[in-house]
């Protein structure tokens, strides 16, 4: 399957590498080419420099054929905008969006976006670690 | 000395400022106006009637009047509603053509750091007239 990952931070690069290993056709987007250093040497996917909230950049990255779009930049709002472009304009079947702010995350989930809040998940994991 | 404006918050620090203003006014033939600003939260309209806050304000003002009477002085009091005290005090100083603002300040720490609050710095920065601040002494627990 074709997957586009927006944001090549630690999480984005890790996810890109996983999907690549599983044999998916992966495109990683980031505005900073320096961030592609996080991709492993063996990465067979395509790094693309550009802003994922720009339709032209998304088209160039092949969003029209993508089945998966994941927004994991550092900016909650940028993720929200890009994810909504992917979902509503390009009708990508599977769109996942990271939102740090739990309140915003809840709201967008209620609006039908598939969202992840690492803030809550992280705090829960730490809480659990304290129990053992 | 013309008009002296004393903004009060209903704390102990008010007393010193009122006494000082009254003494000064008596000696120079000035007038003292005491002002209490109810800061209305933005979730409510500015003219919302918040009984609890109004009571607190009226209490602070009557306390001020009582203190002034003890000093043998009669002062004007005013209760105002605004979003923030600082700009309201400065506006009032403009409107009344005040010559001096005397403010009492508690010694207050926030997160372990001494804090001047928002109002005093705003007044210092923007008041058209002279400003005197009377800071209370540290309390015992603040000392340590």
């Amino acid at each position, binding site marked *: 399957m074709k997957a586009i990952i927006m944001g090549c931070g630690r999480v984005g690069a890790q996810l890109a590498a996983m999907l690549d290993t599983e044999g998916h056709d992966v495109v990683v987007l980031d505005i900073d080419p320096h961030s592609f250093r996080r991709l492993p040497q063996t990465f067979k996917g395509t790094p693309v420099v550009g802003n994922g*909230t*720009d339709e032209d950049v998304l088209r160039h990255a092949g969003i029209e054929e993508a089945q998966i779009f994941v927004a994991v930049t550092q*900016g909650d*709002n940028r993720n929200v*905008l890009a994810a909504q472009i992917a979902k509503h304009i390009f009708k990508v079947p599977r769109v996942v969006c990271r939102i740090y702010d739990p309140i*915003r995350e809840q*709201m967008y989930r209620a609006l039908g976006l598939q969202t992840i809040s690492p803030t809550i998940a992280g705090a829960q994991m730490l809480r659990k670690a304290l129990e053992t | 000395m013309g008009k002296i404006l004393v903004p009060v918050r209903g704390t102990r620090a008010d007393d010193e400022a009122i006494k000082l203003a009254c003494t000064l006014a008596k000696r120079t033939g000035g007038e003292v106006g005491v002002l209490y600003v109810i800061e209305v939260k933005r979730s409510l309209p500015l003219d919302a009637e918040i009984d609890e806050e109004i009571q607190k304000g009226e209490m602070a003002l009557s306390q001020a009047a009582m203190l002034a009477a003890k000093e043998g002085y009669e002062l004007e009091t005013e209760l105002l509603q605004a979003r*923030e005290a600082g700009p309201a005090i400065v*506006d009032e100083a403009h409107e009344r053509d005040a010559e001096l603002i005397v403010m009492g300040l508690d010694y207050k720490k926030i997160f372990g750091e001494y804090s001047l609050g928002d109002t005093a710095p705003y007044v210092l920065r923007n008041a058209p007239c002279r400003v005197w601040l009377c800071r209370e002494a540290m309390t015992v627990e603040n000392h340590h």
Partner: protein
Amino acid sequence: MYFIVVGGGAVGYNLGKSLLKDGQEVLIIEQDPQACQRITEELGSVAVRGDGCEAKTLEEVGTARADVLVAVTGDDEDNLVACQVARHKFKVPKTIARVKNPRLEPLFKLLGVDITVSSTNLILTHIQQGLPSHPLMPLLTLKGCLEVVEVCLPAVSPAVGKRLKELALPAGSVICLLVGKDNLPVVPTKDTVLQAEDCLVAVTQTDSLVQLQAALAGL
């Protein structure tokens, strides 16, 4: 009416100022403490420091009783999110967003922003209105005295339906390329018949531009 303005830059500041002059209740949410202070000193108690996309800030400033939220920060994504949070969490009846990338306007509307304003689009509209409807578009100047221009033939053009050799072109002008409705470039011959919406690339003397335009566009 109660207006909440997200973003206290030049746009937010001047918008707030005008609304206040109209006697409206205004609150400007701005992240930069210095900008906030400036607004308060110039416009009074109408600025709150905070993130206008955050539900907590919006709750504190009474967004639930706001009539309009206007998001005019410099970032499209922030403006979108502020409007969406206002609309879906606080049921603000009207949301207005500034949009820098004009192509995002339809998406913003689809996602529930009532009004979008794109200065890019506004400027473009004004430019297009200020231009004649079928101008010669200058492409290139050659040797300082020749112009390479593009022109799209309007239906009213006197050239439509005529062969190239029948045209009254000014002296020293050549039509060197024709792109028809099929978007294929053709080098026209003297017998090529011109049609409405054909795009031509022509070379002409700088002095003859007006005559060329009259011959091809009829303006």
